[in-house]
């Protein structure tokens, strides 16, 4: 008998395939998605006790198909009576075609008619095989909120007239950007797990990596898919070193590099190197290349900031934005000194969107600190702490300000990635 964890992994791997099989049979996505959830729950109860069926995918398709038919008949009493019976091994598991619709299901869930929050929730349930409760827990909202988001998302897609058929290659190409964005959002939600309440969120990063792996396996030649997977691996590799035991954020320059995940770094570096060598360049690949330069430096001082600066200049051309501008200035300061960074920051502040960005004051604070202007730096850290909407960031920035106010503390050399 398989341990429960392995069964869960298998179920979540099979979830989009079972859903795709049902949609292919003309089941209709809206009902099929609910039925798959029920079949997954039934399997999670039965399989650890009864052992794995010979054809797990067929078992799930059969059970889900029956649930769907019963729901369509609306025969509630019959449904209750059969609830136990259908949860047993079906006598003749349905054959499942070889078609793998994981990619199609991802694209379907990232329908342009949906808000990003709805795309995320629907993707995690329909493709990730997570339950509504698990998603709600990760996002710290009630189950009902996520349940509502998912059912509304499904209705919106139906209303948009796109239908719930299996999307063809054209739709896949068109919506791949949205899929990558959703995976990136899921990853970022789990990026920092710093306290008890946010521990479950760490699982979101792992889930985003799992889904990105599935996407990469199906689109191995797409450089941006590979780039995103690489970026996630190279960022997640630092997870253990990123958070202090008390939950505080540890800046990159102060992290214990021995705690970084060497396997994930090697995989990420190989992925991005391969993508850069044979695919058209894109923002994900450039960001992954920057993360790789950080991860490959044996010490913070050995970081190749010249190369990082050059990559941020490329990124500014490909995908400009306040964060890219700020990060480019940090790299510039590391190459040419904090004064050069501060001058660039003053020039950039003429852009209102940038000056209003909460990271602006954080970068300014770090540069002032490096330039030896302790009082101004302390003030800027406080301003940044007040402006941020992230609790770990606020703690970190307030901590920097306190260190500056206490002359006995060791000189700080934090950098902003």
């Amino acid at each position, binding site marked *: 008998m398989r341990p429960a964890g392995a069964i869960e992994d298998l179920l979540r791997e099979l979830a989009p395939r079972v859903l795709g099989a049902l949609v292919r049979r003309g089941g209709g996505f809206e009902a099929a998605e609910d039925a798959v959830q029920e079949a997954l729950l039934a399997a999670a109860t039965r399989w650890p006790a009864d052992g794995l069926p010979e054809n797990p995918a067929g078992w799930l398709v059969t059970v889900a198909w029956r649930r769907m038919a019963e729901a369509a008949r609306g025969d509630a009493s019959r449904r209750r009576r059969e609830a136990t019976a259908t949860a047993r091994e079906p006598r003749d598991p349905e054959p499942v075609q070889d078609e793998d619709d994981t990619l199609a299901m991802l694209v379907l869930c990232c329908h342009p008619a949906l808000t990003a929050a709805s795309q995320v929730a629907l993707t995690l349930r329909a493709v990730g095989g997570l339950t509504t409760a698990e998603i709600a827990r990760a996002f710290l909202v*009630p189950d009902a909120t996520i349940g*509502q988001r998912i059912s509304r998302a499904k209705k919106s897609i139906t209303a948009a007239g796109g239908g719930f058929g299996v999307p063809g290659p054209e739709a896949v190409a068109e919506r791949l950007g949205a899929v990558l964005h959703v995976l990136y959002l899921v990853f*970022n939600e789990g990026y920092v797990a710093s306290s008890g309440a946010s521990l479950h969120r760490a699982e979101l990063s792992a889930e985003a990596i799992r889904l990105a792996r599935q996407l990469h396996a199906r689109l191995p030649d797409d450089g941006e898919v590979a780039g995103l997977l690489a970026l996630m691996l190279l960022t997640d590799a630092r997870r253990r070193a990123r958070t202090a035991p008390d939950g505080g954020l540890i800046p990159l320059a102060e992290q214990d590099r021995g705690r970084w995940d060497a396997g994930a770094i090697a995989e990420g570096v190989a992925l991005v190197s391969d993508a850069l060598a044979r695919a058209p360049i894109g923002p994900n690949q450039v960001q992954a290349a920057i993360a790789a330069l950080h991860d490959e430096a044996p010490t913070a001082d050995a970081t190749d900031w010249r190369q990082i600066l050059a990559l941020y200049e490329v990124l500014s051309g490909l995908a400009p934005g306040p964060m890219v501008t700020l990060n480019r200035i940090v790299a510039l300061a590391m190459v040419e000194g904090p004064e050069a960074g501060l001058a660039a920051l003053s020039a950039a502040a003429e852009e209102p969107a940038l000056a209003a960005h909460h990271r602006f004051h954080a970068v300014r604070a770090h540069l002032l600190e490096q330039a030896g202007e302790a009082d101004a730096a302390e003030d800027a850290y406080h301003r940044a702490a007040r402006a941020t*909407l*992230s*609790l770990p960031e606020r703690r970190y*920035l307030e901590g920097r300000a306190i260190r500056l106010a206490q002359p006995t503390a060791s000189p700080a050399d934090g950098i902003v*990635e």
Partner: protein
Amino acid sequence: MKYLILIHSNPASREIWESFSEEQKAEGFTYYGRIVDDLVASGELVVTHALADPSVAKTVTVREDGATVTTDGPFAEAKEQLAGFFLVECETPERAVEIAARMPEAHFGLIEVRPILDLGGMEM
């Protein structure tokens, strides 16, 4: 992002509410009910509650000797008192403001939108 929409009352808004007929009050509750229904339907509502009158509030103090003492009445002596709240999760700060603007108290400048600190954060 999550936002807390705080609904305050002040003497003027309380007076208006108290001057309402039964029908007008019922209409007011129905109006709020529609806001709740819409936010449930859009998947944006996390939780919402109306608060009991400030006169039944208790201010709690733990004294130096460890004893907990309570004082009847609200913490702040201000004219504005918290009357209820919506915790919503929405895509943009603009959307949070749009929801806030639906509250009748917005006509009296009594609605406040506060972003909730996120537990995530960027690596510095």
